[in-house]
């Protein structure tokens, strides 16, 4: 108890210190918890998506348990009751999720029924019916005729209802009585079943009707009570089939629940079989769970690898902070020790303090973490957060576990040094102080060199593409991020930072040596101070270098990923919106080909499926990469020219929100050079002026401005631009002639330009030929073209579609690149990557700022005596301030410059590896590394803010310094 009191006094009287430690802890906890939280939220989103996708079939949380009697076997009624009870009561508890539907259906074997009174009902019809009951039938079905069955048989007649459909199919009428022969029930007389009504589902999409109505057509539905008590118990009719169906609502599922849930499900089969033979789980959501599990694991790994350097930095900050504060309290510890505090007491004091702060952090951290996870979820790019429907984020036990781990590590970081310090009494401590000029451990053991070597090796492996086999598995989306590509650079930034710190004192010594004769005293003093106690500045400098280096690298990485995937998509589409309308086509020969012509192009990415005569072109268009290929049933069968009618094009130009429109024809053609066929190529016919307005060009892809080439097209009617690969292969030059067969018509072209890339075309797969559309139409039959639209900023596609419809144009396909980009940006993994990177950067900047200020605070406090002496020696306050500012410039300024430099260097070294082996082929246009000026400015702004804040705080602190006090208390207080 007195200890607590002492601790309270200590904490309260050093509240600033305590507060900063707490802040660090809270940050660490919130950052570490935010990642599992986000992963969890993202999982939920994935779950929600899967839920939507499976809308057609059974609900995703379906669990169907089935008992099917084999042969003429009769289930033991007691076991049956037990299994029924088990399924109804135990399973929901075990699964632990709410369920939307629980439905039991029991049925007898279906049998040939005969009317009781053949005179009334046509007995010659085959009627195969079964008798069944469904739990809570009345709650889900609506009577459409007659009445509901009664709960007890009247005079041995069992009342039943049937689907409306059955009436027509089996020629039933309400009131009819049928005889149902009991199969395998030796000696049981046929059951008399009277149809008393018809029903239909109250709601068609109710999962209660999971079996589908078709299977219910052939069933008499009777009362549950009648079925169980009368049929099963009294008459001992053998049960044939029992289905128990649950539709669980899995939307609230959490990552941590996946494993136990799968185990429960796996165990279920065994338990059920033990209770009643031939009972088994028919449909379960186990595969879905494992899919979720896989995805969430991948996500978590990805995010954690990305966050690892940042988390490490948070811990580094905590360790640095607590170490500094401990250093400061070392004298106090020594005083306590010499006043009779036992080792245990001191450790206990610090442990208790850590525990108190840790638990505060653990309570408040997750809230901030929650907020952080929300922001991760709303990230659309590096340091850009959009306000969109954010992902559901919840606190899970996993997240708390991670938070607790963070606290534990932080505790260890502060308590272990305390244990070491606690060994020293004041006397040992002073003795140690006298020998503090030892180099830090990492310098003595050359850790920096080792780390440099290690990251060099990492670079080598990347270069050799060794790491590529370890895919993240996120192949389905557009984004492939190698977690290691963020880890190894972080390592190398760290290593380079350390290496620089090794050089730093030499640099200072050099400066000192060079300037010793002419430098004014304050500068000389600064340099001496710095070079003598360089070790003391290492933590701060390292923190700054790491923060900025990682910041630069991450921002550039995020930008690069973002830009390249955007450009890839833009290139793939070529323009904002591509619309294909159905063309009226008339075949000369057979009328049945008409439909082929008008509808054949559906889904093909610019390839005209209906265009006949090009051999097997209907097999698809491998060069497009677009969704789907034109499955043309008629293609390749026989040649029949179809004459198309071009729909009015002017409409497109005047559509709402359209800036420009262009006609773009894409078709395959056989290319012939000097009488020799060279295989197929894609011929694109364009109107050069229109095309220049609508197409997306990346300028650096072309030797000259793209418009130069388009002008060339305009200069000659038969001009063609060909792909560079193709030109190289056949040694073609500008001015050469070539012939392309379009629609069975050879068309002659003159090469005017050779280009490596062209929007929407992939020369690595098929060579491309760009020619004038009008010329092609002159020479060859008209083939449908696509309309490329350049949209105004933010213009929507829907009004266009509506307008076209109003103009009686049938739209075959509309592709909007902006939609695609938005979809990409919304992908949880991608958002997560950007979110983590941005958030990590913000956190690290925050940490740097706090670390910076605290560091100087401690540093100044510990040098009060020195300042007192300097002031006493006649240094003016101005000179003192100048000296400190110079010191800052030398340490912080240098580290900032270095951090940015190292970050850029690392980006240039490692970012090219972002294109993995797999997507290097589809990576057209080629990869490029970008540094957005905006990001750099943001970085600078943050850094400036940091420096200014730091300097102001320092200045205030210097003003407040009571030098005489320090001199009075003596020593380094």
């Amino acid at each position: 108890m007195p200890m607590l009191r002492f601790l309270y006094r200590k904490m309260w009287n050093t509240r600033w210190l305590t507060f900063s430690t707490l802040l660090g802890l809270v940050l660490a906890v919130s950052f570490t918890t935010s990642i599992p939280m986000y992963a969890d939220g993202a999982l939920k989103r994935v779950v929600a998506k899967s839920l939507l996708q499976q809308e057609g079939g059974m609900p995703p949380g379906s669990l169907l348990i089935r008992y099917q009697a084999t042969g003429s076997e009769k289930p033991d009624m007691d076991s049956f009751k037990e299994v029924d009870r088990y399924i109804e009561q135990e399973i929901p508890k075990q699964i632990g999720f709410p369920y939307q539907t629980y439905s039991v259906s029991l049925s007898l074997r279906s049998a040939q029924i005969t009317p009781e009174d053949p005179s009334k009902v046509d007995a010659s019809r085959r009627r195969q019916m079964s008798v069944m009951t469904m739990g809570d039938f009345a709650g889900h079905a609506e009577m459409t005729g007659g009445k509901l069955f009664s709960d007890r048989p009247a005079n041995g007649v069992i009342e039943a209802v049937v689907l409306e459909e059955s009436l027509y199919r089996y020629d039933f009428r309400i009131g009819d009585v049928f005889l149902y022969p009991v199969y395998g029930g030796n000696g049981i007389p046929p059951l008399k079943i009277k149809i008393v009504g018809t029903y239909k589902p109250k709601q068609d999409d109710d999962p209660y009707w999971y079996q589908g109505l078709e299977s219910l057509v052939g069933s008499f539905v009777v009362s549950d009570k009648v079925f169980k008590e009368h049929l099963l118990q009294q008459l001992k009719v053998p049960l044939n089939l029992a289905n128990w169906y649950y539709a669980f609502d899995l939307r609230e599922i959490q990552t941590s629940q996946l494993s136990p849930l799968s185990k429960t499900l796996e165990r279920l089969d065994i338990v059920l079989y033990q209770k009643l033979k031939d009972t088994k789980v028919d449909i379960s959501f186990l595969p879905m769970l494992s899919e979720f599990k896989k995805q969430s694991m991948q996500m978590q790994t990805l995010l954690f690898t990305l966050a690892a350097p940042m988390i490490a930095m948070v811990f580094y900050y905590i360790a640095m902070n607590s170490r500094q504060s401990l250093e400061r309290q070392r004298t106090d510890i020594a005083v306590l020790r010499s006043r009779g505090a036992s080792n245990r007491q001191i450790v206990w004091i610090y442990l208790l303090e850590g525990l108190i702060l840790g638990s505060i952090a653990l309570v408040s951290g997750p809230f901030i973490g929650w907020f952080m996870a929300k922001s991760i979820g709303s990230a659309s790019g590096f340091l850009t957060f959009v306000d969109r429907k954010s992902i559901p984020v919840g606190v899970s036990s996993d997240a708390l576990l991670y938070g607790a781990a963070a606290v534990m590590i932080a505790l260890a970081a502060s308590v272990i040094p305390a244990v070491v310090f606690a060994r020293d009494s004041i006397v040992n401590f002073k003795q140690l102080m006298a020998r503090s000029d030892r180099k830090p451990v990492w310098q003595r053991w050359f850790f920096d060199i080792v780390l440099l070597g290690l990251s060099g090796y990492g670079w080598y492996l990347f270069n050799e593409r060794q790491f590529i086999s370890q895919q993240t598995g996120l192949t389905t989306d557009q984004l492939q991020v190698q977690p290691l590509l963020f880890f190894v650079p972080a390592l190398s930034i760290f290593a380079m930072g350390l290496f620089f710190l090794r050089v730093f004192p030499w640099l200072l010594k050099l400066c000192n040596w060079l300037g010793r004769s002419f430098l004014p005293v304050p500068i000389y003093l600064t340099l001496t101070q710095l070079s003598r106690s360089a070790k003391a500045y290492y933590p701060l400098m390292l923190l700054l270098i790491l923060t900025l280096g990682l910041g630069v690298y991450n921002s550039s990485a995020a930008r690069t990923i973002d830009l390249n995937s955007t450009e890839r998509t833009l290139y793939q589409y070529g323009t904002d919106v591509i619309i294909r309308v159905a063309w009226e086509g008339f075949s000369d020969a057979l009328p049945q080909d008409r439909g082929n012509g008008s509808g054949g192009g559906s889904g093909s990415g610019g390839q005209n499926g209906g265009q006949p005569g090009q051999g097997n072109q209907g097999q698809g268009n491998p060069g497009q990469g677009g969704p789907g290929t034109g499955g043309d049933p008629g293609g390749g069968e026989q040649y029949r020219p179809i004459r198309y009618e071009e729909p009015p094009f002017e409409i497109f130009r005047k559509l709402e929100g359209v800036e420009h429109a262009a006609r773009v024809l894409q078709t395959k053609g056989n290319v012939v050079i000097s009488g020799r066929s060279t295989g197929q190529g894609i011929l694109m016919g364009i109107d050069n002026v229109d095309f220049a307005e609508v197409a997306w060009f990346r300028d650096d892809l072309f030797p000259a401005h793209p418009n130069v080439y388009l002008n060339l097209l305009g200069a000659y009617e038969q001009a063609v631009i060909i792909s560079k690969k193709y030109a190289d292969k056949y040694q073609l030059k500008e001015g050469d002639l070539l012939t392309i067969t379009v629609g069975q018509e050879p068309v002659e072209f003159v090469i005017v330009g050779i280009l490596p890339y062209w929007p929407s075309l992939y020369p690595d797969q098929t060579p491309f030929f760009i020619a004038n559309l009008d010329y092609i139409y002159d020479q060859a039959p008209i083939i449908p073209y696509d309309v490329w639209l350049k949209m105004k900023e933010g213009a929507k596609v829907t009004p266009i579609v509506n307008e076209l419809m109003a103009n009686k144009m049938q739209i075959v396909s509309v592709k909007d690149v902006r939609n695609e980009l938005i979809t990409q940006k919304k992908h949880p993994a991608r958002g997560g990557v950007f979110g983590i990177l941005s958030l990590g950067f913000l956190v690290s900047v925050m940490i740097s700022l706090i670390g910076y200020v605290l560091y100087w605070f401690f540093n100044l406090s510990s040098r009060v005596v020195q300042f007192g002496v300097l002031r006493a020696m006649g240094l003016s306050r101005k000179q003192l301030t100048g000296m400190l500012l110079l010191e800052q410039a030398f340490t912080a300024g240098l580290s900032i410059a270095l951090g940015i430099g190292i970050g850029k260097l690392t980006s240039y070294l490692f970012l090219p590896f972002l294109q993995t082996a797999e997507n290097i082929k589809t990576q057209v246009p080629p990869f490029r590394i970008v540094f957005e000026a905006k990001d750099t400015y943001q970085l600078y702004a943050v850094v400036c803010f940091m420096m200014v804040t730091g300097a102001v705080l320092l200045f205030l602190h210097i003003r407040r310094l009571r030098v005489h006090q320090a001199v009075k208390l003596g020593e380094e207080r």
Partner: protein
Amino acid sequence: MIHCEGLVKIFKSDNIEVVALQGLNISVQKGEMMAIIGNSGSGKSTLLNILGGLDRPSAGQVRVGEWDLLKITDEQLVEYKRKTVGFIWQNNARNLLPYLTALENVEMPMMLSGLYDRAYAKQLLEWVGLKERMNNRLQQLSGGEQQRVAIAIALANRPSLLLADEPTGSVDTQTSDMIMDIFRRLNQELGVTIVIVTHDLSLAGKVDRVVAIRDGLTSTEFIKRNPNLVLAGGEHRTGSSIQEGHEEYVVVDRAGRLQIPKTFLDALRIGDRASMEFDGEKIMIKAPKSLEGN
């Protein structure tokens, strides 16, 4: 109370080895108030640190009360520090926790040993004359006041031995006198054994016995003369206060060795050997006789 024999302390650092105490002998009686003087580097602070349980001796015998400080375990050392010894440094940074008030500082050792007694803490502060400033932060106290707080802290656990390392080193004469008065009062009223380390001879003059340490060994002892028996003559030098009221003795250790002051040696140009004569009454040490005429 204190009994040291052949006490050796060796400091080792990376490449140097310093023998701070080279077999020192000293005894202090219970209830005595004595001072240890010596030049800096003579080992007096080392001795005090060992006595205070802050440093461990390398060899020899040290007994303080019931404790053998050479063989003491860490747990016992804690116990020793809590119950037996109180320590005052010249430097207040070592005495006090700057962020606590005077009273809280005095209560701190009590809290550590679990014998929390606020009334006694207040009483202690009253004793050292800081009743009015009890709840002031240390920064608001003057150097002398801080030093007095340090005394109160040292007494917080009612120790039987009080060690003070240059307790008046950084205060003016008036405060110094006040502090010495407090010590004397404590010595007389509570019966606390007090050992003061100082290089201030005037301060040393105010205690009953002064032991001088030179090069890690006790060399000279000054014992206060009975003020009633003032002996004329027998004084070697005048001007230094200690010689005025004290008689100076040379310490002879168990093996019969004694230290000759360096000034004597220099005056006679005695190098590594000397001649010694005994005439039945006196022992005379002379410069070595020259042999073979050189």
